[in-house]
């Protein structure tokens, strides 16, 4: 019902209680549109203030202290203003940019959810690593876990631990800004893209090697075969927001979160 001046009366409005991702208890929440959480140095003391500033520290808004850092200037992604819906985002240059965090998912965790808002760039001519967990120690065989990969076609694919024969679950995407959610619930897998289910599957082995997986990487494949590690399969594009949950969110929780992110970023 509209009143005489064409405005929905306050008493009958579509107001909703403000949703916050914190209500779903993320273990990691990086929001590259919130410039107050971004710093140019890895100690988190010099604020990002301008388009083109490097990102050396992105505070984890989950409250778990899993802050993302990069101490090497040439490896720092950039903060770019007005990338999507007037909001800023991080730019990974496709050469060697990445951020490091403590491990956010347990090594054997097969129930988790990863939610990514990213502006994808073409061409998709090579494998790109958006997220992975790796050892901090030098480790032959380059073990890793809980990865999100962007491959040619293009498509997203996820795997808990590929080297042991884990099963990829993939979802086709197109360039532009996308909201992608990966839900692993035991052996049940699902990719959702732009608020709709894109693919489902089964699988999900966990890393069972002796090497401790104890750090997380955003934006590159960090090969720990040698130290210092080499950086390959670099992600090229913007990362707007990234959340990780240590449980598989249910349909209602996903709808709340995806609606919140879409309202914010105006993706679809």
């Amino acid at each position, binding site marked *: 019902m509209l009143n005489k001046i064409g405005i929905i009366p306050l008493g009958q409005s579509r107001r909703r209680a403000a949703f916050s991702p914190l209500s779903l208890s993320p273990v990691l929440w990086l929001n590259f549109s919130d410039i107050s959480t971004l710093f*140019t*140095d*890895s*100690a988190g*003391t010099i604020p990002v203030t*301008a*388009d*083109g*500033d*490097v990102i*050396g520290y992105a505070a984890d808004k989950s409250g778990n202290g899993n802050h993302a850092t990069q*101490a*090497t*200037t*040439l*490896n*720092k992604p*950039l903060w770019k203003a007005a990338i999507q819906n007037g909001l800023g985002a991080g*730019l990974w*240059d*496709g*050469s*060697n*940019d990445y951020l490091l965090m403590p491990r956010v998912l347990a090594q054997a965790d097969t129930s988790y959810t990863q939610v990514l808002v990213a502006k994808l760039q073409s061409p998709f001519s*090579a*494998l790109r690593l958006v997220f992975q967990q790796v050892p901090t120690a030098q480790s032959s065989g*380059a073990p*890793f876990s809980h*990865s999100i*990969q962007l491959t040619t076609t293009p498509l997203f694919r996820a795997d808990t631990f*590929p*080297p042991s024969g884990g099963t990829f679950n993939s979802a086709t995407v197109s360039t532009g800004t996308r909201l992608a959610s990966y839900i692993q619930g035991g052996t049940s897998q699902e990719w959702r893209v732009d608020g709709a289910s894109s693919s489902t599957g089964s699988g999900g082995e966990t890393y069972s090697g002796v090497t401790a997986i104890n750090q997380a990487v955003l934006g590159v*494949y960090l*090969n720990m075969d040698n130290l*210092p*590690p*080499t*950086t*390959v*399969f670099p992600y090229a594009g913007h990362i707007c927001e990234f959340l990780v949950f240590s449980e598989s969110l249910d349909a209602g929780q996903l709808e709340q979160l995806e609606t919140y992110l879409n309202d914010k970023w105006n993706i679809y």
Partner: protein
Amino acid sequence: MTLYLYRLNIILPEADKDALNALMTAIGEEGDSEAASFGIPLSATGQEPATHRGASGSITEEMQVLIMDIFVAEFANCTIEIWPHYMNNWTEFLAATGLKVIEPKDI
């Protein structure tokens, strides 16, 4: 306006990696280690072993002066390009050198 006014594209011989990683710690922003600056493994064939290392990223005016004008001898064996910070042309730079990134076939 950002202080990171330039993009540095750089390729160096593998043999110079340790020395130049150490030098970058002196050149870089105070408080941050630069010991892993040159992490992209390169060779003419894209196969092991790495003959060169590469990096690309944004740098300040001060870093640009140190690299191009002060530590000239230290960077003498390197291929270096300096661009405005809004450029992102690592792929084109690498292609022009004839080198390829050494990557696992798949993961």
